[in-house]
């Protein structure tokens, strides 16, 4: 809402308060003033001039040589390029020495050999936005009414010595979509009175019912419809003051009748529509829902298809307006209009919102109906419009108002106690302070022993309950005066849940291990949705995606982590180690919320470690990734329950992928990206993993229990075993540990050999076995006996032989 400071001053006394100060006060008490703009933009030296002579420029087709009276001793010669300049006009002249917006200084000049002593200005040159300049002056200079005084300040006559406050209104404050509404707000802030405009309608002796009748067939959409006939109007420009006010509010002037309806819309917040009575084509107005297939050509000359969800004003046969949104071209007020039917109606929000949505038409009128108008002021606005049409369009108002109404004003009464106000706010307001605020708001109330009973005016449709009054009291009392306290409550410790605490430990571990945390988008493209997913379900698709790339919810974190790796590689960051903890979304059926499962995923590519001048360099590989995960399982106390099983998964290297199994259940995987996928993402050798985080964090881990530190020396024996190359080291290791029980405490692999010194199809695995008895020192014989047993076992199970 754009509010002219000077116009506002007609409704509430602004003496002693500048526009800037007013803006601050309004912002502080609840409505944000986004900016204050001075319309004169530093202009100086622009006066009203009278074009005495206007003849073609001797040396230029498009220029005119004008002699202009500026109210000084001598008229001056000015060269003007505007196509509409003519003898006898009153125009705005920037004199030599004048300053126009943008600090543009006017100097004496010679144009094609002719002297020019100033500039005849268009409204745009005076800083008015093109979109509000009246159409007839859009491509040329502005012409004042003929009675404009020569030599007077043109800026003043154009109403530009003014400032405009731009209010950012929240949806609850639709009452401030009108000058009167803003006036009430400002009056409440300043503690001053509101002066309402007066409307005295002089009716003729005819009766409106002889001209028109109104029937509303959809009263739930249109509870109140009223109208008046004004005859013998003369279409012409509206008074300059009205035009300048409309322009200051961002509305382009058209003609007196249309301008008056717009003026009333701004003043009262009540949209009006003026029909050309003679073009209505009937003597009745019927308001109804449109019929499917019906059409209307609106004022903007667009044919619009209507449905039963739209409300139309008809002449009993066909639509003449899309109710509350835009009039029809067939009944438009034109230059030859002589009788006008003014419509003042209350349309309810849903039906208007539907039309706005379906036709992409948002107008000053529809915005107000969408947000809700005050029906108690509808007829008042109609009266004022009729009076203005009589005054400024030479019209004669026909007696009586035509009306169809089911609307009844329901009084809104709110009761609130002083104790409740102070209890909710934590303030110590007195009865008198609250009473003063209600008085300034012009809310009628009674007070009895600290209980306020308030009759809420209909203009404040946002106020219905006690909290609404508390809010009014708080904002007008001033939040600066609110004390700062802390809740008085039983002291309960806060904290993280065990799951949340463990998740943080997991984050810190991974970061300590060298991975950076990534956060990627949850929305992805259909082809990526299920890729790499541990579990898949029917992809969940948005009803109205903004792009196909972000149209479905992800089921794995890996695709976007790969995109991040690829993004980095494209920017010469070759070594990437990222992890992400985030949800994947698995449908449980179309009309229920999906399962959201937290995943932990990672991507490693490039060098994992480099310390080059000492000759160390290690590329990320399967065992780097596995090592990171092993550490994680240790941290969570799960390593003994975790196993890696060779696995084949889509998009992963068939020989370098393992499923991760916890207590026999697959809870994740780790592997190398399939070379084809590496190429697709423009990546080199890349490793990924993804785990079901909840499975890990919710797995009960053993509590820490101290084990005595060894008191006796342990014995270490190494064995190198030759086995078939398809025997997995992990399986062999398990077998050794099992056969060596209870004396073998640790088995660790320290060498893998395949090559010339072994037969084809064989490999050698070397393990280090640590023997230990907590009760005593072991003898060589005891160790040897167990060692033999281990050897016999692996020979029997795997055909393993000692490497000679």
């Amino acid at each position, binding site marked *: 809402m754009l509010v002219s400071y000077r116009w506002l001053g007609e409704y509430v006394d602004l003496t002693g308060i500048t526009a800037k100060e007013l803006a601050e006060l309004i912002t502080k008490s609840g409505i944000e003033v986004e900016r204050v703009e001075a319309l004169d933009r530093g202009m100086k030296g622009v006066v009203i001039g009278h074009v005495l002579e206007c003849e073609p420029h001797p040396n230029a087709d498009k220029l005119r040589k004008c002699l202009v009276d500026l109210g000084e001793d001598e008229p001056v010669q000015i060269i003007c390029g505007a196509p509409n300049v003519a003898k006898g006009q009153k125009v705005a002249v920037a004199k030599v020495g004048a300053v126009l917006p943008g600090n543009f200084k006017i100097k004496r000049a010679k144009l094609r050999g002719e002297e020019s002593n100033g500039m005849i200005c268009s409204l745009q040159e005076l800083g008015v936005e093109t979109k509000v300049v009246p159409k007839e002056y859009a491509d040329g200079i502005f012409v004042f009414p003929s009675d404009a005084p020569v030599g007077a300040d043109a800026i003043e006559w154009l109403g530009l010595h003014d400032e405009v406050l731009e209010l950012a209104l929240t*949806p609850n404050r639709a009452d401030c979509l009108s000058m009167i509404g803003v006036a009430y707000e400002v009056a409440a802030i300043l503690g001053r009175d509101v002066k309402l405009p007066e409307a005295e309608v002089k009716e003729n002796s005819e009766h409106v019912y002889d001209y028109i009748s109104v029937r509303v067939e959809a009263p739930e959409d249109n509870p109140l419809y009223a109208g008046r006939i004004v005859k013998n109007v003369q279409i012409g420009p509206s008074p300059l003051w009205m035009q300048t006010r409309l322009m200051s509010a961002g509305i382009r002037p058209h003609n007196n009748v249309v301008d008056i309806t717009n003026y009333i819309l701004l003043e009262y917040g009540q949209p009006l529509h003026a029909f050309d009575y003679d073009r209505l084509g009937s003597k009745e107005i019927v308001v109804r829902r449109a019929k499917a297939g019906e059409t209307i050509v609106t004022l903007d000359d667009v044919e619009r298809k209507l449905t039963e969800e739209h409300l139309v004003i008809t002449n009993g046969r066909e639509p003449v307006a899309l109710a509350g949104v835009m009039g029809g071209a067939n009944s438009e007020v034109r230059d030859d209009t002589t009788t006008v039917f003014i419509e003042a109606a209350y349309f309810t929000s849903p039906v208007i919102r539907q039309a706005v949505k379906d036709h992409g038409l948002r107008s000053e009128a529809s915005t107000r109906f969408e947000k809700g108008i005050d029906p108690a002021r509808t007829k008042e606005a109609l009266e004022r419009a009729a009076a203005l049409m009589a005054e400024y369009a030479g019209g004669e108002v026909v007696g009586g108002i035509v009306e169809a109404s089911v609307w009844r004003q329901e009084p809104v009464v709110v009761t609130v106690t002083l104790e409740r106000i102070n209890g909710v706010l934590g303030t110590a307001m007195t009865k008198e302070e609250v009473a003063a605020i209600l008085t300034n708001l012009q809310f009628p109330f009674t007070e009895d022993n600290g209980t306020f009973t308030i009759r809420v005016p209909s203009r404040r449709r946002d106020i219905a309950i006690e*909290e609404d009054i508390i809010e009014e009291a708080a904002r007008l009392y001033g939040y600066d005066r609110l*004390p700062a306290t802390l809740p008085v409550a039983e*002291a*309960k410790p806060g*904290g993280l849940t065990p799951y949340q605490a463990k998740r943080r430990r997991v984050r810190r571990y991974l970061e300590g291990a060298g991975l*950076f945390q990534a956060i990627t988008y949850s929305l992805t493209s259909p082809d990526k949705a299920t890729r790499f997913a541990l579990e898949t379900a029917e992809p969940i*698709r948005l009803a109205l995606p903004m792009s196909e790339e972000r149209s479905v919810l992800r089921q794995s974190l890996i695709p976007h982590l790969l995109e991040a790796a690829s993004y980095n590689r494209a920017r010469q960051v070759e070594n990437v180690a990222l992890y992400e903890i985030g949800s994947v*979304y698995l449908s449980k059926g179309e009309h229920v919320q999906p399962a959201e499962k937290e995943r932990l995923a990672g991507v490693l590519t490039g060098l994992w470690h480099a310390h080059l001048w000492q000759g160390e360099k290690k590329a990320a590989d399967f065992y780097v990734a596995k090592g990171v995960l092993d550490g994680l399982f240790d941290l969570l106390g799960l390593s003994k329950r975790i196993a890696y099983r060779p696995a084949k998964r889509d998009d992963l290297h068939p020989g370098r992928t393992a499923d991760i199994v916890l207590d026999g259940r697959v809870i994740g995987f780790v592997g190398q990206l399939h070379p084809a996928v590496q190429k697709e993402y423009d990546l080199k050798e890349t490793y990924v993993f993804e785990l079901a985080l909840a499975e890990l964090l919710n797995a009960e881990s053993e509590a820490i229990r101290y084990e005595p530190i060894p008191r006796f020396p342990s014995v270490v024996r190494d064995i190198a075993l030759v086995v078939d190359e398809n025997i997995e080291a992990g399986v062999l290791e398990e077998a050794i540990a099992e056969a060596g029980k209870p004396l073998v405490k640790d088995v660790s692999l320290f060498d893998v050999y395949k090559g010339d010194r072994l037969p084809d199809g064989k490999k050698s695995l070397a393990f280090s076995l640590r023997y230990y008895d907590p009760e005593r020192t072991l003898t060589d014989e005891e160790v040897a006996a167990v060692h033999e047993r281990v050897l016999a076992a692996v020979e029997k199970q795997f055909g393993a032989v000692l490497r000679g």
Partner: protein
Amino acid sequence: MKERLYELKRQALEQIGQARDLKALNDVRVAYLGKKGPITEVLRGMGALPPEERPKIGALANEVREAIQQALEAKQAKLEQEEVERKLAAEAIDVTLPGRPVKLGNPHPLTRVIEEIEDLFIGMGYTVAEGPEVETDYYNFEALNLPKGHPARDMQDSFYITEEILLRTHTSPMQARTMEKHRGRGPVKIICPGKVYRRDTDDATHSHQFTQIEGLVVDRNIRMSDLKGTLREFARKLFGEGRDIRFRPSFFPFTEPSVEVDVSCFRCEGQGCGVCKGTGWIEILGAGMVHPNVLEMAGFDSKTYTGFAFGMGPERIAMLKYGIDDIRHFYQNDLRFLRQFLRV
């Protein structure tokens, strides 16, 4: 013989002084103190002396031997010390060469901010509540006093999946969910961090996915002044002790009264600068007293219970705190960006 002994002492000390290394020193030792050395010889030749002379010469010979011995030891210690120093000097390294790097990653800046805020409120007795990102229309809107057709729904253009299911547009559904769990009995004291989604085109200041932190306190006798005190405490811990806050009236459907909360600028101390656009204040929160409809819908008696709620955007806070200029950085995962957030 006396002269001979004095001469020997002089010669020996001179040679000791000249010895350059341990071997040379040992040669001197053997030459003078060895079994065939000159001093032994002198002692052996004592038989030729008158008996009364013998003890004197004997004593003198011992004295000389002693002196040589001491000089040898001193010199030996000195040479050994020099040897060690030489050896250490040879072992010197260039301490300015790079150390073996310890591989370290770090949290995402949003996680940094979120965890800092979580900890701050945990310190004030809050617990952390988390909930679904794919929400029902009921919890995302209706339970928050935003019935279907409410004009404020326009303020949040949402990603719907079906008519009743959508990606949550704020973390506020957790208010309703948590209160329902409490079955009408306070106190409720939670903060809810999480991802939220809006139908916005991604640019420097908009992201279709972003994060929010919601806070909610419901109990008997919770006052708006408690909200002010809590948020002032929060602002001071997050932005520095000298910070102040101010409330500006605003509108949210789920709170009443509603306010926007500004923190005095931490960059210019309220004098006005680029960060605060010259106002001295930075808007960082929306807050208010929980609307009675929201309390009632979640099963709380709004006559006995009151509450406050607040919400903030970790992206905005991180952008302010670290001077980040483009919200898209948070979701591109450029390592040149991410690794700037390592320091404690």
